[in-house]
């Protein structure tokens, strides 16, 4: 694992991103140390998803830089060769950084087992038997061993999201990004998904989680980052953010969750 001089695994500097005329990210600076769980909070539309997608190379950036594991993403739209270079780097980053989506995005035409083995076999050319035994272990880890041959549509939302995490884990990532992983779930299914992330945190996985689950954030996060209108307005330990927020906007935002 490559970490920066400041000890960060993920390091974002003055990141700016526009969608058309709309400035979605207006200069984000962020560092994530290996093994940390960072929770990203902020009102809807403030740019949380866009930030995560940038970190994974799913979006291009307008200026600034993202360095993950020593690979740097920068502005790419100026020429074709730079664009190609960007794609290559984005793929290099995705080898180490997994992503979990709000709506799970499992592959509906594949069983859970196939969902989990597909990428290792296709991308890493992993031996099929090996991929299978690894997938079985991952299913045990997320408590879905009985559902290996089921299709996503036969599972509850909580089960689907756990399967999605297992699918990301199959690529042996160093970090996982979660974009509101529990927002689409019935309240009584939220817990089982958070539990998986807690276990991963205990095992030392680097994680960034966009969520509105403030209890979870307070109990598990190492850092909380609060965004508004494309900017980070406050950053700190759960203690600092929840007990003595410095910024008025943070105080106001958190009031909604009390």
């Amino acid at each position, binding site marked *: 694992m490559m970490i920066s001089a400041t000890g960060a695994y993920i390091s974002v500097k003055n990141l700016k991103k526009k969608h058309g005329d709309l400035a979605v990210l207006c200069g984000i600076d962020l560092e994530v140390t290996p093994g940390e769980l960072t929770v990203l909070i902020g009102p809807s539309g403030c740019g949380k998803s866009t930030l995560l997608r940038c970190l*994974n*190379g*799913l979006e291009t950036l307008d200026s600034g830089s993202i360095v993950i594991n020593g690979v740097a993403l920068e502005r790419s739209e100026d020429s074709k060769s730079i664009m190609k270079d960007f794609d290559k780097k984005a*793929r290099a980053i*995705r*080898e180490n950084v*997994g*992503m979990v*989506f709000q*709506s799970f*995005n*499992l*592959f*509906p*035409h594949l069983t859970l087992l196939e969902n989990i083995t*597909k*990428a290792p076999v*296709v*991308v*890493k050319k992993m031996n099929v038997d090996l991929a299978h035994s690894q997938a079985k272990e991952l299913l045990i880890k997320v408590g879905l061993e009985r559902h290996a041959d089921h*299709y996503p*549509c*036969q*599972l509850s939302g909580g089960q689907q999201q756990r399967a999605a995490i297992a*699918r*990301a884990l199959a*690529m042996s990532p160093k970090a996982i990004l979660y974009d509101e992983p529990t927002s689409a779930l019935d309240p009584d299914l939220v817990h089982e998904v958070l539990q998986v992330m807690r276990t991963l945190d205990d095992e030392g996985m680097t994680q960034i989680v966009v969520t509105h689950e403030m209890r979870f954030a307070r109990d598990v996060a190492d850092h909380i980052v609060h965004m508004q209108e494309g900017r980070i307005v406050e950053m700190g330990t759960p203690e600092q953010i929840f007990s003595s927020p410095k910024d008025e906007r943070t105080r106001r935002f958190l009031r909604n969750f009390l």
Partner: protein
Amino acid sequence: MKKGDHTPMLNMRNIIVTLSCIFFSIHAFCSEKGILRWGSDANSGAPYVFRDAKDPSKIIGLDVDIIEAVAEKLNMKPVFIQNQWDGLIPGLNAGNYDVVIDGLEIIDEREQAIRFSDPYYITYEQLVVNKENHEINELKDLKGKRVATLPASLAYKILEDTGDVQIKKYGEEINAYADLASGERLDAVLLDAPIAQYYAKHNAKLKFVGPNIGYMKYGIAFKQDNNALRIKVNKALNILIKEGKIQTIIEKWGLWNPKMAEAWGVSVEPKTEAVGYKEYLRSMNLERTFIDKLKLYVDFFPLLAKGAVRTLEISMLAMVVAVVFGLFIALIRLYAHPVLSKLALTYVEIIRGTPLLIQLYLIFYGLPNLGIKFEPYVAAVIGLGMNYAASEAENYRAGISSIPHSQMDAAFALGMSRLEALRHIVIPQAMRVVIPPVTNDFIALIKDSSLVSVITLIELTTVYGQLASTYFDYLGIGLLTAAMYFLIGLPFARLSRMAEKYYSVNNKKQLKGVQS
């Protein structure tokens, strides 16, 4: 050792001897016996080129005998190539055959595009009307009347010059006389006397009226620049005329007339029996019972089956072209550079916005003008394939677009490249959406393949036209042919329904899964 050596040596020598024999015999065959490809339309083509009612796989007629006599004189092997009347001259110019002989009149308009041999037959136009009709007796009585003839013929020009005639163009002579006999659609038919003799004379509901009209000479047609062959054929033809051979052939078909006798300076009295014409009349007057017809249909079966196999072959190959090329276009439309994508869209729109028939004509008769020439078979597969590729591309595009972009994101996030994501995630899902319309398209393609009969290809529809016009039975043979098409398409219709059912059951299962 020595013995061992000996045998292979002998073998070697044998092989060389055999090979050189084959080589020389091929060489000899080529130099001694060239091939004379002659194009004509055997559908309802009496007395020139038509099918023998006793054996529909055999073509007979005045022009057949003439071209065969000429070929024999030239020591060439005549090879008949079927093409429909309208396509005969374009096919000649496209180089699909060396000559055309099909009762073609030597007229100025044609001289511009092609060249003719010396005349081998001389005749006139004959006016035919319904027995009940007493108004029409000559050309000038035709004003305001509905008169049928063949397009691009001298008769057509005569009717135009008469003025004020409602000219009805017919593709096949029989249909014109049949309509005239029924008395509903036509008032008269003006066609070459031999045609009238073969299709109208024995019909009790029709009568010949008026004097001989016009003076026409039939010639063999050549491509404009093929003067060498034209000179050779003319030489042979003139020898045959001098020998009396051509007169014998004309007499055989009962077509000897005073105009010919005058032109060639011989006696008006025929010297030989009109055996061909008599045989034709006999087959015409045969009253066929239902059982006779059934027996005939059984006889047709091998011919129709052969056509059906050809139809299926072309359809399958065209579908392969359509499926592969269609995917290519769809991917360009979806993922390539905007300029390429626009080009692909333009292709799809042009192909879908123009008739398949025109596309086939362009490929088969048009492209040779630019030096691009295809065999009929290849042209058919390309034409149908490229046409259906546009439809398939749209099917694929709709299928691929129906897969939400989040699936692509998920695949990317797992480290897949665009190609891997398409191949393993997007396309397999799109398949479920795409398979039912693609199988439906294949059934449509089988039916559309009947259009390739216009480019000299003998498939099911061509065989139908040949048999129906030989036996004057468009109904029975038509039903038989329709049944053939239905049978060919049936397995694919079944497949399409099975696919639809399979996916709808699957979808229901998925819905249940979501609900529980």
